[in-house]
């Protein structure tokens, strides 16, 4: 029982990190659907570097940089070129997953030595779990209690007004998108390096998409993302456990996605009632008239 909760909390970490990053990107008005691709590329980068150096911290750092680099391609297309954000995000998923599949083919089946996966732990959870939960608190503070947060939110709600008071809309959007990529890359690195300890093609298995759904569930609030991520982590961990009771693994695999649909419907109808929703300028390129 304890192990089942503990696995659930560990599975919540990558979801939480990726959705925190996406919350910042979307709060600034950029919808980056490429999370799955950035996670996948980050997962491979972290695995490869950790295998080579034996240092998981260096692996996660590389993953974050790779994720941020990929997100800049999306920022360039959607902010500077004012391209279609849905199409650019989908393209990023394909590029990220394709690259990791191509470059990762030599790593399939090689496990990481146990020693290089070990990071400090407390009460059954590793350091990164505590860092992620603390980070969601800090990101909440920044977004709702600081000037920087007001600037980010205003760029996502009404870029024209923000622009008129001297905010550099494009710079803020670039920064927030890159921050999203940073966290998505690190989230992928966590899956391959800390959680799995080996590389498999298609390692992220839709987690990036679930992280985007969590953003909606959390109503774009970093503090609320923790609950959603833990819920999904526990459900996935329950999937592993139920397999022992003779329930088909194929059916159990569909569980997180079915839950995502339910969560989307519930969260959206709640938002409709309370009239809270996405940032008003989400997905809209800014065009100074």
């Amino acid at each position, binding site marked *: 029982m304890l192990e089942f909760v503990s696995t659930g909390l560990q599975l919540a970490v990558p979801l939480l990190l990726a959705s925190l990053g996406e919350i910042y990107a979307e709060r600034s008005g950029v919808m980056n*659907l490429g999370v799955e*691709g950035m996670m996948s590329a980050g997962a491979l980068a972290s695995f490869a570097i950790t295998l080579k150096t034996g240092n998981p911290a260096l692996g996660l750092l590389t993953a974050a940089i790779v994720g941020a680099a990929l997100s800049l*391609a999306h920022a*360039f*297309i959607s902010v500077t*070129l*004012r*391209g*279609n954000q*849905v*199409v*650019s995000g*989908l*393209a*990023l*998923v*394909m*590029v*990220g*997953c*394709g*690259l990791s*599949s*191509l*470059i*990762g*083919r030599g790593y399939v089946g090689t496990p990481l030595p146990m020693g290089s996966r070990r990071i400090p732990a407390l009460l059954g959870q590793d350091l990164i779990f505590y860092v992620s939960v603390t980070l969601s608190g800090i990101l909440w503070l920044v977004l709702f209690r600081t000037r920087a947060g007001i600037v980010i939110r205003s760029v996502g709600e009404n870029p024209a007004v923000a622009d008129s008071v001297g905010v550099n809309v494009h710079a803020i959007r670039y920064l927030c998108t890159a921050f999203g990529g940073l966290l998505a890359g690190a989230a992928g690195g966590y899956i391959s390096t800390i959680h799995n300890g080996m590389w498999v*093609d*298609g390692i992220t298995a*839709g987690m990036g*998409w679930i992280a*985007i*759904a969590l953003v*909606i569930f959390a109503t774009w609030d970093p503090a609320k993302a923790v609950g959603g991520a833990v819920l999904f982590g526990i459900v996935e961990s329950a999937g592993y456990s139920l397999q022992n009771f003779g329930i*088909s693994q*194929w*059916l159990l*695999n*569909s569980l997180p*996605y*079915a839950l*995502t*649909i339910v969560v*989307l*419907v519930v969260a*959206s*109808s709640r*938002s*409709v009632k309370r009239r809270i*929703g996405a940032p008003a300028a989400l997905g809209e390129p800014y*065009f100074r008239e």
Partner: protein
Amino acid sequence: MRLERSKRRNGVLTRLIFSFLAVLVASMIYMLQGVDPLDVFSALISAFTTKVGFSELLVRMIPLLLISSGLALCFRMKFWNIGAEGQYIVGAMAAFLAVESTRQPIVALLSAFAAGAVLAVPPALMKSRLGVNEVLSTLMIYYVVYWVFQYLIHGPWKAREKVGEVSYGGFAHTSIIPAELGTVPGTRISPVMLFLALSSAVLIYFVMERTKLGFEIKAFGGNPKAAEISGMSYFRTAALTMMISGGLAGLAGAGDLLAIQHRLIPEFPCGYGFTGIITAWLGGTSPLGLIAANMFFGGLLVGGEEMMIVYSLPFGAINVFNGLILMFVAAGEFLTRYRAR
């Protein structure tokens, strides 16, 4: 320098140039991974110039064309149906059940269209009533369908093999269907499916240019608020568009089962639903544009599969090509929509 929204609409040349640039960049990445780009180009060219290559190109063009015709309608409305792969799978599943019980391929095709259409409606309902993001809902429904499909062919639908008198549960696939669609001798091309695919590209052009639905799709794609105020129903338009799109994807799944695979195997869903997103974006709602884009990607798939085998690359590696083409074309839109002043 000031940017201004441009009136020029001729983006075909820009898209071609940017697709070509993307292929160059992708080839460079492959070269760094030890793949000779000349091999890539010769594989691509042989898909268009040899008899076997071209017939296999058409085999892949048929499902792609059906899927992307429907997606082009959705995208014109800015309704992002990303779940065509799931609608393709559910079409094949419905066709399997129908042909098992009736032995009539035509019944199987009709059931497949119906199943794909039904699966495509909930995202339209969720978006119009609750504002649920359709990218997520269509994709999540795909994932659920994918795993249910795997469950069925690994479990309840698994064929029993017979060796002499002994019957046992063999590999994870269904039994061979009792009736099939005929193919042109020496190829895997079904004339019926080729006809349906080409008609679907013409059909959606007709829908866009000659029907009320087409007018509403354009209206919601351009200015949804104005369309709503003038009395059009978002739900009705989105649901009809999705039914056409889902139905065509379902047909594609049925065609591949009835004419090519003859049974359902774990690898049956091979990504046409995702490749169709790119070809729909490239081709738009023009029949010639769609046929050209899907022939190109049919060739890319045939050449790509050859590369995968020769260099023993994982199947997912072809997404480097797919993604870069989509990304470059999305970037290139800039040149057709804005001009410097």
